[in-house]
């Protein structure tokens, strides 16, 4: 074996020092990463200001300066405090049941944001999607019980679009109506005025983050009635029209003897030509 040149002690020292430092930093960095990722779990009742980027992007964009909070004229926004509030420390949020967003036309919070964590592309407050209202408790909602509370509907800044009252028969009393407050998510900004105004001790309508409130249709789903309307006729030619089994006297009600008429019959083959 050839005589190896003795390794310098400085080299060994440098290598061990570097390894030790790298190890320490990996440990510290791991802890920090754990904390930083932990902060991603935004509580459902904490809503971000209008125009806020999706939460994962927001946490990389918001520098926690608080200028949006300062420029909010209604003191809606607050900065999350360490250990006291759920969202990542120092980031802005609001709780609809405490102070909802008043949907200012000039959106001062977005204007104040220096980094674009609140997207300056949002210029029409009606386009904001801070969350969406969900009537979470039909069993306690006064309107669903058959009363005319209507408060959530009346206070909605996008009334008759984001919340409508859907009329239906009150089967309990037999001769009254139910005006069901119904949210249409494509118009709801998530401002939270409905949740704030709900007269119950615990709101029956709540603004939830979209990730919790909304389902999503599968990409391949087609709504037959929409497709049919578009085409102006049945999608598949020559479908056999099977007899309808309908309620009413006569067990089978095949030709509607004494019962209900079918509401829809397929056009006879060749009828549309």
């Amino acid at each position: 074996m050839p005589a190896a040149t003795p390794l310098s002690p400085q080299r060994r020292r440098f290598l061990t020092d570097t390894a030790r430092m790298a190890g320490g930093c990996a440990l510290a960095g791991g802890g920090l990463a754990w904390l930083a990722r932990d902060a991603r779990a935004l509580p459902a009742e904490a809503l971000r200001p209008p125009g806020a980027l999706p939460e994962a992007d927001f946490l990389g964009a918001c520098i926690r300066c608080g200028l949006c909070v300062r420029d909010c004229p209604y003191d809606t926004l607050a900065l999350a405090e360490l250990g006291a509030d759920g969202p990542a420390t120092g980031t802005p949020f609001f709780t609809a049941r405490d102070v909802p967003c008043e949907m200012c036309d000039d959106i001062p919070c977005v204007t104040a944001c220096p980094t674009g964590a609140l997207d300056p592309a949002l210029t029409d407050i009606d386009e904001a999607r801070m969350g969406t209202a969900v009537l979470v408790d039909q069993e306690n909602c006064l309107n669903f019980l058959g009363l005319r509370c209507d408060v959530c509907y009346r206070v909605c800044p996008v009334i008759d679009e984001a919340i409508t009252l859907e009329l239906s028969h009150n089967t309990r009393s037999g001769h009254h109506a139910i005006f069901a407050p119904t949210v249409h998510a494509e118009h709801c900004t998530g401002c939270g005025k409905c949740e704030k105004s709900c007269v119950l001790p615990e709101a029956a309508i709540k603004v939830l983050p979209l990730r919790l409130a909304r389902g999503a249709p599968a990409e391949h789903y087609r709504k037959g009635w929409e497709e049919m309307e578009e085409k102006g006729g049945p999608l598949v030619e020559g479908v056999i029209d099977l007899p309808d089994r309908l309620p009413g006297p006569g067990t089978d009600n095949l030709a509607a003897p004494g019962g209900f008429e079918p509401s829809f019959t397929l056009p006879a083959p060749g009828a549309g030509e």
Partner: protein
Amino acid sequence: MKEKTKLPVGVEAIRLKGWWQAHRFLLLRRLSQGFFLLLFLLGPWFGLWWVAGTLAGSRTFGILPLTDPLVLAQSLAAGHWPELTALIGALIVLAAYALIGGRVYCSWVCPINPVTDAAHWLHDRLGLQKGWQPKRHTRLWLLGTVLAVSALTGTVAWEAINPITMLHRGLVFGMGFAWALVALVFLFDLLVSRRGWCGHLCPVGAFYGLLGTHSLLRVSATRRAACDDCMDCFAVCPENHVIAPALRGKDGETPLILSPDCTNCGRCVDVCSVDVFAFTHRFDRRVEGPSSPPGPSRQTVA
């Protein structure tokens, strides 16, 4: 060891210069720290919104944006390209500290500085051991770690625990349990590691140190020939490794304290009873004093 070395720090300076003169820069520094904090508190306390925001990002007189460049660097590492306002704000801060010395932030603005100074004062009074002393460049490693974690998690990672912005935001907006972090820094400096946080670990200090590597404003041991080896400057300096090259420099070696670790706190100027140190700019290489009178032969190399 000289007799004077054994005297408590600053006694000689107070005797010769008077208490006020021997605490000039310390008092100015506390005033400055209070001033910058008060600017942010004028709004929430008195409704006077000259300055809104926090140290991470602010707006002065409704027009001047300032952004902490390290916070913005984390945001960039996390993959977010910020709007122009934040970029301009960061550039202004970068330019200012590159000029006057990055770590001027540490000793004249940072709200944690009074905390660690208090810890050090108590540490001295209790006569505690210096404890764990990690290498000075640990903070550079931590700075790298902070940026790496920001990139990996896609978040402004350091702001999850940064005691500086936590304390500042706490005072201006609401504290929560941020005081616990501040208490941890205090206890760490008191019991675990003397001058440990600011001097060895804080990645913010590391960042501002790098920023001020070529800064103009410097302390210089201009009258180093007058030094009587009382060691008070070494005792009072939070980064005392920066002094020796300037103070003990041989003829021809610069009297300027050029290390980016120097925070320009000016305490060495305060406690020196023979006024060795003075603030000057980095091109002022004059050396004067009784044993080395100014003259062509003493002029240093450019």
